[in-house]
């Protein structure tokens, strides 16, 4: 039996080597001093990290990505918090259908969503590309916001809300003074999870590019097509650091069980 466990342990180690190895390799190659990606690197240099800041498109698209992910997040919160609250708090006819609608953006293939939005949001509704990008990312984030907040509301005893009402608080006052403070960590986790989904998105953004408008992942894709220097590796390292920090905060706020539940 011990032996079988040892075999399993070895197998699992190999699985994790497969999962994390490439990410470690990419990190090493980012310090390559030469202009061709190599592993192991032939020296150590910050050169390609500096290069990120010299390529103007990286800076512009980074700003666009940040703006879209943060502002879209805000929009998704404004739309999503009331919806998550209504869906958790009340029973009413058509609740199942509404739940379905709010979750559907994760069910529809991203590339299909991107194309449909290009066709209608940009062409038919005639919104500027920047606005289309923002709208697309808001739609993308909404199900994550609603799901995480609804799951944190599912632990909330709504008698607490009634207690506040009976003590003289109005509905809105109750929400801000009693409900919101108690689901705060859920909301922050929702913001971070949605942010990562949006910031890393390719499927929708790839259709929403235009003169001077593009997101960082799309710019990275374009860059890879024409260059094979370690700049992308350097950006990758920065993105992984950002991911690790956000993931750490999410873990502190609500543990990682959100990811294992389905």
């Amino acid at each position, binding site marked *: 039996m011990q032996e079988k466990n040892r075999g399993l342990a070895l197998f699992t180690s190999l699985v994790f080597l497969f999962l994390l190895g490439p990410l470690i390799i990419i990190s090493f190659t980012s310090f390559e001093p030469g202009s061709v990606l190599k592993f192991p690197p032939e020296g150590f240099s910050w050169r390609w990290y500096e290069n990120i800041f010299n390529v103007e498109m990286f800076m512009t698209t980074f700003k666009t990505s940040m703006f879209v992910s943060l502002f879209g997040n805000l929009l998704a919160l404004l739309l999503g918090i009331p919806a998550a609250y209504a869906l958790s708090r009340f029973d009413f006819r058509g609740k199942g259908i509404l739940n379905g609608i709010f979750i559907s953006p994760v069910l529809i293939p991203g590339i299909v969503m991107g194309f449909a939005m290009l066709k209608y949001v940009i062409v038919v509704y005639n919104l500027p590309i920047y606005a289309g990008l923002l709208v697309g990312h808001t739609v993308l984030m909404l199900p994550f916001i609603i799901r995480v907040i609804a799951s944190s509301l599912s632990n909330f005893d709504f008698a607490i809300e*009634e*207690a*506040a009402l009976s003590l*003289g608080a109005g509905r809105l006052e109750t929400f801000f003074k009693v409900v919101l403070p108690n689901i705060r960590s859920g909301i922050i986790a929702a913001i971070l999870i949605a942010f990562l989904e949006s910031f890393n998105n390719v499927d929708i953004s790839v259709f929403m590019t235009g003169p001077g408008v593009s997101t960082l992942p799309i710019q990275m894709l374009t860059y890879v097509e024409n260059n094979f220097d370690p700049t992308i590796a350097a950006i990758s390292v920065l993105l992984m650091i950002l991911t690790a920090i956000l993931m750490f905060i999410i873990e502190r706020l609500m543990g990682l069980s959100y990811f294992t539940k389905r």
Partner: protein
Amino acid sequence: MALLTLDNVSVAYDNQYILQNFNLNIEKGQLISLLGPSGCGKTTTLRLIAGFLEAKDGRFMFEGKDYTRVPVNKRNFGFVFQSYALFPHLSVFDNVAFGLRLRKINETEVKTRVQQILEVVSLGGYEKRFPKELSGGQRQRVAIARALVIQPDLLLFDEPLSNLDANLRINMRVEIRRIQQELGITTVYVSHDQEECFSISDQVAIMNKGVIEQLDDPATIFKYPKTEFIARFIGFTNFIDFAERTEQNGEIGLRVGDHHFTASKNPGTANPSGKKCAMRPDDLLVTTEESAELGMNRLRGTVKVSTFLGRSYQYVVETELGDFTVNQEMETPYKTGLNVNLLFPKDKVVLVD
């Protein structure tokens, strides 16, 4: 005039009535319990009074004013929840101060009043604690203090003790009664535990299927239940359904088949339509003697089951009118199969609907 009146009130979910043409009057300063099995409508009544539910029809009058459409946060009623419903993110002090601050009372007075009320519920010194650091009983006291501090016009309790263990439950109900009487505050108390209700209430309303079957002081209900449902609910186990009821020589005559019973006139037999006799197991006697005893109705039967209860024996006696349960203290028990006489004291007979 009553402080609170529910006048022909109806409440329905999905077109299913929980309460229909419901009426209730409550006098100032009283503690009235709503008692009944789950689903009887007691919690609905309480939530209606609190304002969490809205009546479909009917009126809710309070101090002579129409409260039917007054929203919950404008009613100034204190509500104590089964789950305590303390604000997890606030300290004991801030929990209790919550209602006062909403009333824009200045912070010095908030402080005095919170301290005062925490003394009343014996929680002085706990101001800085958070709900999760308190025991169940302490949380309940905070919940009560929070409801009391706003000087509510009415205090409402929804099964406040059901999450506590048995000993604490007895202490807390004494405490609740003490505080209620000390402050003279009108209180509506909901529970499914009859001992709890009977021990703390001025009046008990026993509810069944959305209707109050009896509203009386606890002693009266205990001795003279008005309906079979209530009689069963408070421990009457023996029933005889008589066919005919007559009055003779200041007593009540009852007949079913060849069996004739008499019952004394008392509040328990005052119900003119009551033809069903209800008896507690403690009030019946089993005997092997044949001599007639004064003031007793008699019925022949056979001991079917005999169980030792500690202080007494419990018999199930089979008769022509069905099985009867009797609790009787005695040295040596009757054996199963023995032919006995069952005695029904005529002053213990209660007639119910």
